[in-house]
């Protein structure tokens, strides 16, 4: 009993400490990152899974990634009013790899390197003016990047 009470107290304190931090943008979307399907992650992150395929988004990734542990990905878009960009690897255990919250000054182009467990579609989702747009690309992985 005592231990549980202490744990609850600890959790409450930790929560309070987190809440006290100055936050200008949204907190880390834990539920989206722990989702085990691309759709669930989309729902958690953007509140919808309905995206419009758009050729205004450029997703740059290799056709074949020799090393799944390091796959360079760049998402750029010519859409106006971009609020956030998400990178989803459909076949990863937790498909959401990264999301980016952009302010009005940010240029809607981000590059990073991600891990891919196996050959999968990589989906770039862009939220612009409240609407979701996406484009995807299949990347073949010859050596998985999840340490297996």
């Amino acid at each position, binding site marked *: 009993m005592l231990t549980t009470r202490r744990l609850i107290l600890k959790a409450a304190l930790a929560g309070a400490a987190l809440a006290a931090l100055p936050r200008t943008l949204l907190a880390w979307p834990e539920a989206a990152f722990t989702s085990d399907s691309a759709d669930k992650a989309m729902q958690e992150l953007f509140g919808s899974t309905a995206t419009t395929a758009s050729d205004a988004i450029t997703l740059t990734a290799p056709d074949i990634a020799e090393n799944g*542990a390091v796959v360079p990905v760049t998402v750029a878009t010519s859409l106006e009013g971009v609020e956030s960009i998400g990178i989803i690897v459909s076949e990863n255990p937790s498909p959401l*790899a990264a999301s*980016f919250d952009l302010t009005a000054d940010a240029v809607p*182009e981000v590059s990073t390197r991600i*891990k891919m467990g196996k050959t999968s579609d990589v989906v770039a989702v862009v939220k612009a003016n409240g609407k979701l747009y996406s484009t995807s690309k299949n990347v073949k992985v010859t050596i998985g990047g999840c340490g297996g």
Partner: protein
Amino acid sequence: MASIRVKAKVKDGVAQVKCLMKHEMETGTRKDQKSGELVPAHYITEVTAELNGQVVMQANWGPAVSKNPYFAFSFKGANAGDTLVISWVDNKGEKASTETVLS
């Protein structure tokens, strides 16, 4: 600890920023080869870029971002002499930040 390396360049008011962070980015699903036990997850969750104290970009990451993460982005409204602060927080609450003066 200099765990973030930042390269930033301003051209026509647009700052192009490239950063490399030093971090294990453990997924929590990998097994230690000797003990056979799972290596606990340890990865960066949030990266924030601030220009003169104003947030311009925030990245939320999961464990699927590669070890020693690379992050490149750019933003408008930058001038030489502005201060750019890049900082990260990981899932264990560890933090790092680096200040760069734009040129």
